[in-house]
Structures are given as structure tokens and as C-alpha cells.
């Protein structure tokens, strides 16, 4: 008893419809246990299209101005202090003009700028080379421009350190735990063999707080944090009223940290 083509197509069509309907019914009946749970960003989180920071160099006057900022960051992020530059782990630190802005210095520069320490941190580039070279995507760029480190995924290959033109990344050669003076329970420590760097305090932004370094100099506004894509943000106001420079802009990484080089009265 053979069937002809017409009959075959009819049966095939009907069984397909029944089959499709069948799976949807089963799916509808099958309650996924976690179906009702869901995730969302915290309602109080600070959001921006593009986070950026402005460093007003002239407002850093005494050693304590720098120390306060560095301590605020390193304390809350459990950054270890190994006490030697070889193993050093740093998120925010200082360096001279000629190191921070190589090629832009000249011998007749004003002494105050030439020998002044500059606050330096990860530039959270628009076009971050570290992200491009990371084989595990442990470092990645968030939609709001923050270049993030996922410590869980880092395999410690240090390609990112080689790629970063700003030396903003540190490697944990040693177990950092014994070298943390006072552990901050809100933030994890790192482990040996992991690269770390400034993360623009993404964990604080999620709670509606500004980065720790910016908060530490709230009174003199030496550091200003804000949305680069918002024309009314404080960052944009400074950028439109002051002349600012960025580190190694010739490399095309588009850093999001801007420096106001005030100079003295004539500048």
C-alpha cells in the first residue's frame, strides 16, 4: 500500500504542525525553575554614555594632595604595598611630565610643570589596545567606556601589559594578601598571577557613588568625573573652557583622562 506524493505532503505537513505545536505546549507546561528570577542594574547606579575624568594639575599643591588620592583608591581596592618597585601593584600613581607626556617636554618649560608629579591612572581608552590583545576577554570595554578587568578570567599572560602604552597595568607576582594593611570587605583581593588596574570604581558607580579618588579631592575639585557625551556635564564644561591634553594621543587610543595644564599666571 504505497502513498502518492500528494498524500505524503499532506501527512508531512500535518505532522510538522502537530509537532511544532507539541513542543510549544510542552515548553509552556515545563516550568523552568528559575524562569521567574531576573537580573537588572541597581536603580541607584550612576549611568553615563561615556565616563571620563579631568585632572586639574594646578590643584595638586602639596604631597598630601597626591597621597590622599592614592590612599583612597588603594585602600578601598585592597591594593597591596610590597614595598619594592619590582613587585609594585598600582592603580593610581604619579610620574613626571616627561614620562607622562613624552615628546611634549622641552628644556625651557616652566619649572613648576616640569618637575611636578602628575596623577596617572588607567586612561580607559576609547580604542583600548589591551582589550584587543587579551586572549580570554578578561579585559573588556563596557558600553559606558570603562575598560574593565574580569579577574576571574585573567590567565596572567600579560599581553595587555605589553599592549598598554601607559603602563597602567600591574601584575601580581606575589600573593597580595599578606601585604594589604587593612582589608576592605566590600571588595575582593586579587590572587597571584592576575593582572589588575584602575576600574573607574565601577563597583562604586553601581551604588551611586563617584570614584574614590574623585571623592578624596571633592573639596578642591582636582579630579572631576563625568559623562563625556553629556554637553552639560562638569567634565564637558571644563573641557570647553580650558585647554587640556591627553597622554600619548598620537597613538590613537583616545584616552578618556584629560589633563588641565594650568601653569602659572600667564598660561
Amino acid at each position, binding site marked *: 500500500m504505497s502513498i502518492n506524493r500528494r498524500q505524503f505532503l499532506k501527512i508531512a505537513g500535518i505532522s510538522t504542525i502537530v509537532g511544532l505545536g507539541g513542543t510549544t505546549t510542552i515548553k509552556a507546561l515545563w516550568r523552568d525553575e*528559575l524562569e*521567574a*528570577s531576573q*537580573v537588572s*542594574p541597581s536603580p541607584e*547606579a550612576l549611568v553615563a554614555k561615556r565616563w571620563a575624568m579631568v585632572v586639574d594639575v594646578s590643584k595638586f599643591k602639596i604631597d598630601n594632595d597626591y597621597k590622599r588620592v592614592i590612599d583612597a583608591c588603594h585602600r578601598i581596592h585592597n591594593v597591596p604595598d610590597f614595598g619594592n618597585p619590582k613587585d609594585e601593584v598600582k592603580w593610581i600613581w604619579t610620574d613626571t611630565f616627561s614620562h607622562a607626556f613624552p615628546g611634549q617636554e622641552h628644556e625651557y618649560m616652566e619649572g613648576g610643570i616640569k618637575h611636578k608629579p602628575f596623577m596617572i591612572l588607567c586612561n580607559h581608552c576609547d580604542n583600548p589596545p589591551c582589550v584587543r590583545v587579551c586572549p580570554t576577554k578578561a579585559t573588556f570595554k563596557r558600553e559606558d567606556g570603562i575598560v*574593565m578587568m*574580569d579577574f576571574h578570567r585573567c590567565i596572567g599572560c600579560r599581553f595587555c601589559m605589553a599592549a598598554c602604552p601607559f603602563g597602567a597595568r600591574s601584575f601580581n607576582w606575589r600573593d597580595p594578601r599578606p601585604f594589604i594593611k587593612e582589608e576592605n570587605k566590600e571588595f575582593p*583581593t586579587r*590572587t597571584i598571577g592576575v593582572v589588575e588596574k584602575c576600574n573607574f570604581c565601577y563597583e562604586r558607580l553601581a551604588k551611586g557613588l563617584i570614584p574614590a579618588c574623585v571623592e578624596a579631592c571633592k573639596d578642591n575639585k582636582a579630579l572631576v568625573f563625568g559623562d563625556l557625551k553629556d554637553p552639560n556635564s562638569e567634565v564637558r564644561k571644563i573641557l570647553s573652557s580650558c585647554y587640556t591634553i591627553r597622554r600619548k594621543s598620537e597613538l590613537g587610543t583616545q584616552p578618556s583622562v584629560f589633563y588641565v595644564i594650568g601653569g602659572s599666571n600667564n598660561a
Partner: protein
Amino acid sequence: MYDTGKIITGLIIFVILVTFPFYNNIGKAISKPEPKLDTPEIQKLPEKERRCVEPKAFMRTEHMKLLNEWRDSVVRDGNRMYVSTDRKKFVMSLQNTCMNCHSNKKNFCDQCHNYVAVKPYCWDCHIAPKEKGT
């Protein structure tokens, strides 16, 4: 057959070695782990709210998956708020949310993990709560 004696002796030694774990443990039942849920933080909660983010049975079998999802959600997507199946909100954080209630890592986490011989490396980075009296 050459070297019969040596071969048979070797075989006997081999069998004894391989079966050693079995006869060595005969009659020694290792008690089932019983994670303790009576931390001061949990006791402080009102009776009705004394429950985990998801039902106990689910947490017992799936907590590692849940924690993995939380981790990715927080770090990769920036989503930190977890709305559980019964519509309660939690901040997704091992160190701050989970360990806040389960402040007895030794009697809660380690009991089972030691029993099933798994060594999660969570605590290499995340700071375990300071335990009192242990």
C-alpha cells in the same frame, strides 16, 4: 610458564594495593555533612524572612551555577540586582550578600566542600568573613 611465582606474587600485591581503599574503609561510615544555618545574622532575621535567595533544595544543588551566573552578570554586564522567583530583591555579591548571612564559612561552605572533595578557589580573592570562636 616462566616466573610463575613472581607473577602471581606481583598480582597479589597489585590486587591488595588496588583494593586497599575499600577494605581500609569498611565499617567506617563518614557522617553526612550537615551545614549549620544558625549564624547570629540569620537568627536576627524575622522568622518569615529566614530564607535564602532561592528555595533550599535549589540552593543545595545549584548554588554553584547561580554563583557563576551572578559573577558573569555583575562583572560582564553590570547587572547587580537579583530578583528572585518570589520577587525579592538581592544585591548579587558573594562576599557581601551570601557571606553576610552565612558568616560561618567553616561550618557552612567547607563542610560539604570537604566531604565531596571540591576546592573552589573563590576564597583566593574573595574575603571570607571573620569567624568568631573557631
